């Protein structure tokens, strides 16, 4: 990771993009890094599109809203269209290739096409598409080791959610493999 | 059995809430999971148009005004 990493994560309401960001922010917190997570909020996010901004940094974070991102994770087509232009030159874009087809990408960015929905269905649960994408992201960016996110999973999936732990780990590793 | 009428579905308005399907007395409505519409939802489809009795129940229950119902004139 550079001194700081700024991400935009965007998708449909039900795709779990908020959680993806929170997991990264929690991992950063665990490692004593500075971090800020900012959601889009309000009624328009219900059912519609949702996105969050995450900044992870070794030094104090000033402006919290990500205007120029290092990474964009686009879980669907509208998100890609909305945020692609705000990725820095040299930045990376991870795209849900199950929903985004035939898009012409900017030339100055690194693009990872991962069909996370299809993979998730393979794994037997569409809901883990987001974790597959997270895996791909840490695989591509090396911002965190998988163990760091697994720790967060353990913090988040407690009580009757504990049974989801394994599936999510599996999804994470599978996602990493997609970019390795 | 010949249809008594038909429904016209404005697919792009459908939010895939699955409400209408529960009220069809002849059970010919379901969501079309094979596709998503412009709003990102799986829209309504008719499985067996021939059975439609033009009762309008589906249309009455649709919150989003997706369905128009026509009766065939004899």
């Amino acid at each position, binding site marked *: 990771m550079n001194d700081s990493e700024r991400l935009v994560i965007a998708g449909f309401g039900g795709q779990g993009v908020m959680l993806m960001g*929170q997991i990264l*922010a*929690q991992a*950063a*917190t665990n490692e*004593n890094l*500075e*971090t*800020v*997570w*900012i*959601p889009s*909020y*309000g009624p328009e996010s219900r059912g519609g599109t949702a996105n969050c901004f995450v900044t992870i940094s070794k030094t104090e974070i*000033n*402006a*919290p*809203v990500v*205007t120029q991102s290092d990474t964009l994770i686009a879980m669907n087509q509208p998100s890609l269209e909305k945020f692609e232009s705000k990725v820095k030159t040299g930045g990376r874009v991870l795209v849900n290739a199950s929903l985004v087809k035939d898009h012409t990408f900017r030339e100055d960015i690194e693009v990872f096409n991962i069909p996370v929905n299809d993979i998730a269905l393979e794994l037997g649960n569409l809901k883990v598409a987001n974790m597959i994408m997270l895996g791909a992201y840490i695989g591509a960016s090396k911002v965190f080791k998988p163990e760091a996110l697994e720790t967060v999973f353990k913090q988040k999936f407690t009580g009757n959610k504990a049974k989801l732990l394994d599936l999510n780990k599996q999804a994470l590793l599978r996602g990493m493999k997609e970019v390795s | 059995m010949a249809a008594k009428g038909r429904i016209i579905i404005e697919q792009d308005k459908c939010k895939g809430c699955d409400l209408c399907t529960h009220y069809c007395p002849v059970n010919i409505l379901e969501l079309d999971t094979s596709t998503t519409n412009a709003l990102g939802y799986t829209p309504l489809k008719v499985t067996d148009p021939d059975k439609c009795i033009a009762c309008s129940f589906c249309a009455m229950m649709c919150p989003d005004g997706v369905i128009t119902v026509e009766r065939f004139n004899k």
Partner: protein
Amino acid sequence: MAKVLMKGNEAMALAAIKGGCDAFFGYPITPQNELPEYLSKHMKENGRVFVQAESEVAAINMVYGAGGSGARVLTSSSSPGIALKQEGISYLAGSEVPCVIINVMRGGPGLGGIQPAQSDYMQITRGGGNGDYHTLAFAPENLQETVDIIKESFTLADEYRNPVMIAADGLLGQMMEPVDLERSSNVKEAPLKPWAATGESGKRGHRNKIVSLFLDPNDLEDHNLKLQKKYNRMIDEQQRFEMIHTEDAEIVFVAYGSMARIARSAIETLREKGIKVGMIRPISIWPFPEKAFENLPKSVHTLLTLEMSLGQMIEDVKIVNQGRYKLDFFGRTGGVVPEPEEIVEKVLAMKEGAN
């Protein structure tokens, strides 16, 4: 203490508990809902009071009853909800009932929108209630500062027997950051409140009354003069601010809360370009930190006020400035969160204009 990652609204709620808050009364409104939601779970755990009031008007009057009966009390809302509380706030100040009021600001006027704004500066610092009164008002820029100030606010409210307002915004309310909830802050145990209407007149030996009515104008004036002394003490003791890179600055920003944080990025960029900018960051917005403007270096020629509104704090800057420096302004409003680049451009344009 380890930092925990929390959503702003929840961190505020927990900070209130840590600050000794005994009771919360509030009414839902975006973008502060997670605050009462958190408390609805956790006040009870702690044997404290949580009531969802029927309205903001009811909520602030419940605060009056609970605070006047000696408890440490909190209410929170967002812009139009605070407007509805104005009569109650005037009563609280007039009757000297301590309490803490959080405003997680959103765009206005009217119903407006729900995105972050700072356009309630006047509403918070001038009050919309009737009469000569003031409330302490603090405007933190990040969650750690928010937590520290809220914890301390209950103590301050008790010390001055006065409402304390927290000027937050939708960004602070909705974002997550790691915070240390145990970081030392000036939190004192609730003091004895010999003035409170606790229902213990027997034990106490005399009745207590919580009152803002004085039918004889001379009594009411005396009461006001007494309050005024307290306000002057606040002006003396509670001006809070941070000076950022002012030591050699030519242009000094004046910005608070989220806007100040954004401005920090702009300062970095501008300094990289060799442009000497600094910032006065008011932390208390009432009292406005006049002291910050007293010993600015000779290099300063312009004060640039930055707000997420169309120019409200700039009135205070004008009052303090009294013609000394050139004044300029940049603001976005309605829920638009400006990008640091816009501030950079504004400064570049100012330099341009000056040449």
